[in-house]
């Protein structure tokens, strides 16, 4: 049994996990810093770094203990080294380097988005065939990207990306405008229960220009949504009260979900793939999961949604990348550098 210890500190989750190759999760420990950042309505990088330093040693030790393995049974150390908040990434990378050098084990650098992508294959009942082509959406508070996974060992290819706000970031901002708590995604989902998603027409972000090399049809834009909600609330002061709040929250959620699902459907159709997948924190959203299920059923495609416990940032997905033979082994471990801004899949053929 090959056991990989994974470490994830790219943003505001401090996490460690042990995965047995290729994808059996032996432990998965996550500390969310939401409470620390909630008073500010977003992640404060300095506070995130401080919290990682404070908590990471105990979390790594707990992950090892819960996996039921001795330190000598750890076969490799995987760590998120890109992209993310610089100070936060550095804590995890320093820890991983020290462990790799101390244990004389390989150090595997993992791209955070690739880890989210591979998380769709975690879980006992994953319906996806890793060898088959897949259109995969990674959607969270920090990222909104659409990928083509050719299958097998081929690298993911970026199809589309958000041109401004990430989907989760847009939900955070809308929630703030509606007087809801942070994080905004779950708050809007709760507030939207029983609401009419067609009550308030909101933009669904159809950018006319994409990033160079990307098709605008697969790209996203959510900044207009936030502006539209701001004006609606200004013109309808009662919008922050029920029942209009319920309808407005449902309309916000629908605008984001529809924008995401439309691109996934378009990409699956264009590429002719038989598998659709979604991962990342926003992929926990029930409406998004339901709409993707409908889209997959309509195409007769297999649907792989990351299990909810692996949607938000976690280290199991990081370890799983390395356990499946992906990631970049760095020799010597001391040579690994963080890359706070590093795209995934842009250079692929």
């Amino acid at each position, binding site marked *: 049994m090959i056991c990989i210890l994974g470490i994830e500190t790219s*943003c*505001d989750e401090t996490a460690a996990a042990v995965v047995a190759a290729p994808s059996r999760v032996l432990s998965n420990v996550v500390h969310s810093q939401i409470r620390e*950042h909630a*008073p*500010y*309505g*977003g*992640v*404060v*990088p*300095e*506070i995130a*770094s*401080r919290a990682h*330093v*404070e908590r*990471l*040693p105990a979390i*790594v*030790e707990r992950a090892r203990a819960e996996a039921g393995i001795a*330190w000598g049974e750890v076969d490799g150390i995987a760590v998120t080294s890109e992209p993310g*908040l*610089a*100070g936060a990434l*550095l*804590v995890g*990378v*320093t*820890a*991983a*380097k*020290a*462990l790799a*050098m*101390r*244990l004389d084990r390989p150090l595997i650098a993992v791209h955070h988005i690739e880890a989210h992508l591979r998380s769709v294959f975690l879980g006992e009942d994953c319906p996806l065939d890793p060898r088959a082509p897949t259109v995969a959406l990674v959607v*969270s*508070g*920090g990222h909104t990207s659409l990928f083509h996974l050719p299958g097998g060992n081929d690298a993911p290819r970026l199809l589309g990306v958000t041109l401004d706000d990430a989907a*989760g*970031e847009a939900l*955070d*901002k809308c929630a703030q405008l509606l007087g809801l708590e942070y*994080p905004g995604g779950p708050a809007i989902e709760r507030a939207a229960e029983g609401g009419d998603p067609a009550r308030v027409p909101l933009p669904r972000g159809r950018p006319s220009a994409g990033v160079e090399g990307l098709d605008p049809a697969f790209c996203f834009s959510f900044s207009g949504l936030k502006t539209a909600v701001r004006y609606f609330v200004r013109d309808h002061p009662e919008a922050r009260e029920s029942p209009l709040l319920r309808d407005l929250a449902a309309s916000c959620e629908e605008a984001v979900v529809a924008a995401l699902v439309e691109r996934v459907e378009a990409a699956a159709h264009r590429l002719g793939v038989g598998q659709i997948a979604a991962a990342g924190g926003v992929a926990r959203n029930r409406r998004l999961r339901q709409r993707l299920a409908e889209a997959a059923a309509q195409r007769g495609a297999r649907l792989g949604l990351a299990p909810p416990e692996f949607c938000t940032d976690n280290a199991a997905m990081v370890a799983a990348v390395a356990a499946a033979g992906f990631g970049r082994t760095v020799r*010597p*471990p*001391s*040579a*690994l*550098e*963080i890359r706070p801004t590093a795209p995934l899949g842009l250079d692929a053929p």
Partner: protein
Amino acid sequence: MIAVSIEMSTAQASLALFRDGALVATTRVGETDRRDAPVFEALTRLLNNAAAHPADVSLWIAGRGPGRYTGLRAALTLAQFFALPGGAEVYALNSPIALAAAARRETGAPIIAVIGDARRGRCWVGLFRFTSDGLPQLEGDWTLQIPKHLGEVIPSEAVCVSSEYERLLARDLLPPQCRKRWIEGDRFPESADLGSVALARRRAGILSEPAMPLYLHAAVALSADGLPGPRSAESK
């Protein structure tokens, strides 16, 4: 017993290796701004020269600042994670204590005041007295002071030292009444002094300080309600 001391609170970061309590070697760490590779390279060099492996180190000593955030985090994370697999000991202590030991050696003063720029119009001050064995001890707690009031908290017999002397001078943060009692120029805490003090404190039965950075600067700008201002927040 091999002990490694890591001091990275200033731009002059260094590592020291002790064997059975005696200093064997020290090495400088290159620029670490947002990078930790130089400290690993320096550590590899230090251990190789001593024909040692990280697993041979039974005590990791780390300076916890105050000072450069990246350096403090790297030093403490490195010490804790090298120590974790084999259950080696981590001993953390404030970095100015090393500066106080060096200043005492140089001047013989009964009290050493270590001062730093806490930004936003404040200086932090630590006053160190010495035991009969010459071991520096922080008197009371760290204080944050407006520079013009520094003279009120520093006893007349104290000698002042700082790793930011030139910066304080350039920003007119050194009150005239204090200047004559300063060791002039920037002085940096050294890993050899940090390690020697840590080993002596351990022998004296003094416990490690918490293995957490000592932050004497506000994380982000404080607003009227004491919370960081919204412009400092970065939406995830």
